[in-house]
């Protein structure tokens, strides 16, 4: 919890003034009994004057009004500081999540991150507001009462200290016991989030396999678990107020008894006992508030821990920006060079072994190979989504590790395997690469990607809604929109990772023709399963089991590379290959 303190830095004023307002209100409240005493002692007993009584009544109204004002100020500051801090935490979380690399994101999981940004932050936010509103009043009353008790009778005030100690111990016990349970509770919440996400994404498959029942069981178990944990923790936290109540009242019994002894011995008056008892009651009331606060805080600190866990996760790939890299414009510098690159995901065998090739500017390069042979892995090394294990990757003659992420990635247009669009309009989706792209630029990209025909037909054209993920478009349409998205802004390097898979051959061919016509200076890398797609490429890289087993043009490879020949012949007849 305290680690999140820095998010309150901008709200120092609120954090200080808020509780002060509350304190002021508490003091005003304590004055009311004194006014009442005046009404009785002076108004009734001494003066028998209804006018005085009325005057005092007016004073009470004034006190109430002043109390209201300061309470409102306190609420204002509490709302401002807590909502502000919550917003700052959400910002920090989101920004930090953006800086993490795939490995960490896979480990944390999206549903858990959603819960942390929303639910956990809400808990912390509520906590801050509660603390501002309640935390000053209770200690003020407790300490005040203790001091008063000590002035009345020092030995008897020892009972107060004993009671305070006992209550403190109870608080500590309940807190330490319940924090881990709350943490477990939030974890189950993650699980419920994960299950929801899976069920929503997999609704077709679940229905196709008629698995609704077993999915129901999975969620039933998770919700059952949540209920059990929640009840376990509530059994514990429900202890707080009864124990506090019992301890203070037992202390009252002790005060009355030892007070009786003292009175009997003539050491104190009966009135002192009454005063001590009433102070003890004050403490009780304050402590019950504290107890409720503690319950909230334990829940909040479990959430705070989860937030910190994210904030403290360090990205495994970090920018080492050397801003002053100057790319020497030289036609002989290859656009991309892999030098003896090895790669593995940390454990297990090499995914890529000794990859070595160069790609000149303006080339169209095809990468082909079996499922799981490392094509996509190889592609992911160019924008530095992963770092090579051995060797080096160069873009424009400079090691990718020396670029800032944005400098490196901005020049590339990537079309990933999974065609995902984002909710918004088509125009918004087309502006991912270049945020101020004109409609002309967008239309040009759509035309090259063979997407303009269907976009044009949509009633709202570029302003047509795109639902989350692009679900309102067919697989092929989505794929073409993703290609267009990468083309907007004419990147130097276009990387197509198996991006034609949902296209029929006619569209595929038309698209490639349009690409060839419009992108003379663009270096294009096409990962594909279809050999017809890359037959005319300037360079074909053939991958097998993480190794580069062939590089060259179609005709050479068809003669010399067995893997390549097998792939071609599996798709086309002998005559088709030679057409």
């Amino acid at each position, binding site marked *: 919890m305290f680690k999140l303190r820095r998010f309150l830095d901008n709200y120092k004023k609120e954090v200080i003034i808020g509780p002060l307002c509350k304190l002021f209100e508490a003091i005003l409240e304590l004055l009311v009994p004194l006014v009442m005493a005046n009404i009785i002692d002076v108004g009734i007993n001494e003066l028998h004057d209804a006018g005085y009584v009325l005057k005092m009544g007016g004073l009470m109204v004034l006190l109430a009004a002043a109390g209201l004002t300061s309470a409102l100020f306190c609420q204002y500051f509490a*709302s401002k500081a807590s909502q502000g801090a919550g917003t700052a935490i959400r910002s920090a979380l989101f920004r930090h999540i953006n800086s993490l690399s795939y490995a960490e994101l896979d480990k944390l999981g999206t549903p858990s991150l959603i819960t942390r940004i929303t639910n956990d932050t809400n808990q912390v936010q509520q906590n801050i507001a509660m603390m501002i509103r309640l935390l000053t009043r209770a200690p003020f009353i407790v300490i005040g009462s203790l001091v008063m008790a000590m002035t009345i009778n020092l030995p008897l005030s020892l009972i107060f200290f004993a009671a305070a100690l006992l209550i403190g111990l109870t608080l500590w016990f309940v807190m330490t016991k319940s924090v881990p349970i709350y943490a477990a509770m939030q974890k189950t919440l993650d699980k419920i989030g994960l299950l929801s996400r899976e069920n929503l994404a997999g609704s077709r498959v679940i229905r196709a396999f008629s698995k609704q029942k077993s999915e129901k069981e999975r969620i039933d178990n998770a919700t059952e678990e949540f209920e059990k944990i929640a009840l376990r923790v509530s059994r514990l936290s429900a202890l707080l107020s009864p124990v506090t109540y019992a301890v203070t009242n037992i202390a009252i019994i002790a005060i009355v008894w030892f007070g009786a002894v003292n009175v009997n011995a003539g050491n104190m008056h009966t009135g002192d006992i009454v005063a001590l008892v009433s102070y003890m009651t004050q403490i009780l009331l304050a402590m019950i508030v504290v107890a409720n606060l503690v319950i909230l805080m334990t829940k909040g600190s479990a959430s705070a821990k989860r937030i910190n866990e994210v904030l403290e996760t360090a990205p495994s790939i970090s920018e080492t920006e050397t801003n002053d890299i100057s790319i020497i414009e030289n036609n002989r510098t290859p656009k991309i060079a892999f030098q003896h690159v090895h790669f593995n995901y940390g454990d297990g065998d090499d995914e890529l072994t000794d990859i070595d090739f160069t790609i000149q500017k303006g080339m169209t390069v095809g990468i082909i190979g079996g499922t799981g042979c490392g094509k996509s892995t190889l592609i992911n090394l160019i924008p530095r989504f992963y770092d090579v294990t051995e060797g080096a990757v160069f873009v424009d003659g400079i090691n990718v590790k020396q670029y800032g992420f944005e400098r490196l990635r901005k020049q590339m247009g990537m079309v990933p395997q999974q065609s995902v669009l984002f909710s918004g309009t088509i125009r918004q989706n087309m502006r991912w690469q270049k945020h101020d792209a004109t409609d002309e630029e967008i239309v040009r990209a759509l035309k090259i990607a063979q997407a303009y025909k269907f976009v044009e037909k949509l009633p709202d054209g570029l302003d047509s809604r795109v639902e989350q993920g692009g679900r309102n478009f067919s697989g092929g349409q989505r794929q073409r929109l993703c290609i267009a998205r990468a083309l907007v802004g004419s990147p130097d390097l276009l990387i197509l990772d198996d991006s034609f898979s949902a296209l029929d051959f006619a569209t595929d061919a038309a698209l490639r023709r349009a690409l060839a016509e419009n992108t003379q200076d663009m270096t294009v890398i096409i990962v594909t399963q279809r050999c017809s797609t890359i037959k005319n490429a300037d360079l074909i890289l053939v991958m097998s089991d993480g190794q580069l087993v062939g590089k060259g043009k179609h005709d050479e490879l068809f003669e010399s590379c067995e893997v390549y020949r097998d792939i071609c012949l599996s798709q086309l007849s002998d005559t088709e290959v030679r057409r």
Partner: protein
Amino acid sequence: MKNPSVKKLLERVKPHKGLLALALLTAVVSISLTLLIPVLIGAAIDNIIARGEVYFEAVAQILLYIAVAIGGVAVCQWLMNYFVNVISYRIVRDLRRDIFRKFNTVPLSYTDTHAHGDLISRVINDVDAIGDGLTQVCLQLFSGVVTIVGTLIFMLAIDWRIALAVFILTPLSLFLAAFIGRLTHRTFTEQQVLQGEISSYVEEHVGNQRIVKAFSYEKRAYEGFEEYNQRLLKVGFRAQFAGALANPSTRFVNALVYAAVAVFGAITVLSGGLTIGGLSTFLTYANQYTKPFNEVTGVLTQLQTGLAAAERVFQTLEAKDETPDADTVKPDASCKGNVKFEDVSFSYLPEKPLIQHFSLDVPSGCHVAIVGPTGCGKTTLINLLMRFYEVNDGRILLDGIDIRDLGRDALRRCYGMVLQESWLFRGTIMENLRYGNGNATDDEVIAAAKAAHAHSFIRRMPQGYDTVVSEGGGNLSQGQKQLLCIARAMLTNPSVLILDEATSSIDTLTEIRVQKAFAKMMKGRTSFVVAHRLSTIRESDVILVMKDGNIIEQGSHEELLKKGGFYTNLYNAQFAGQE
């Protein structure tokens, strides 16, 4: 408050009547004892008069009673807390289960058109808010009602006129609170809606980090997030502050009532209608009486958040279900796989007709391939076949039975389906493969994996078949995921096989081998294959060429090529771009 959600929530509390009664009972016991203890303490003090005048026996006797009462209060308080928690957590559990069940019973159009992040937020955050609200309301309500009734009795006994005044005036504060509540209700609703939107945004942008990184979109993704975040700050602050207004306001009203009682009471004393002691006791009770009103408004924020959340939750819970299964006809145990479309018409949107008057007869054992440009209705055909969507007109027959007369489960059990979007859940590979057939032995699973050519890469994974697939299958390539989905479908041993672009990301060599395995398995069974790679469907019995929702050509590969129509163009297109 006339809020429909309140009624619906009460419906949900109803089944827990027994617990509710117990909670109320414990509340009555603990609060009456709490009210009694001050009286007992007073009585004890009355026995302590002065030096030498202390009746220890009587004091001891009373203190013993107090001790017993304390025990009673503590136990009952704990029980009440616990019962209330049980009620609210059970309701939370049931709400989550019900929404979840809903996810699997609503028509697919619901999950297709709602943002998943928002739905997840309903399961997690909104239900949580309801739980918090319920607990607070129950706790405050019970002790509140009992305290009010108890103190009212005591006050009536002292002076019925003033008591009546207090009784009537104090609820004024509740009206004020209710008024504030109504004014701010919209803000709270807005807050929950924004929470849902933030969830959606995070789900999209964190879930698709690959694309965000590829486009160096981090900064803009963050800006987009900040927009929501700042809006939430504004709305959240408004909601919190407005909600927090209620408590100081009610306390102010109650302070006024207190002052009025003091003045009025004092004047009554002056006219001799009341003793001073009577007035002071009266004021003590008046104080106690107003406390529950203050406390209820103190949790108004939680209450309102809970209500706004309840609205969203019930909205989902009340979404229309799929038309229930007629289930009048029991399908043959061995489905033969005769599929017949009779004059079928369908469209997703009434104003955009898609499939019109479509008829097709597929005898058992026939291998059907469907080709055509993207967006022509191929996947829609599959959606109808599986009853993911229902036909608007005409009917589909399976073995002569209208599929609407078959239960969905029975129908889908006849099918094995592999979709282009390969969905896996978080679990081991073994669990994922067994998804459609929980009874499969390890050997059967491995055999299926071998047939699907997934065995070799599974074996190479860190824990083999026990490797956990991360949500969405992030640690696998698209092609590998498809192979797993194929193995999963093979294990169910279906009568009709449906492949919708199921092999689009698999290399052609593997694809041919997988297809051989399919062919062996599907001998004599019906299959529907949607594919773009024409090489993969050459062997089909019938190829349907679709365009704009209609079949425009139909026949075997050779026949269609001879025809020289649309199919021929499609086929030749693969070699285009070479001229």
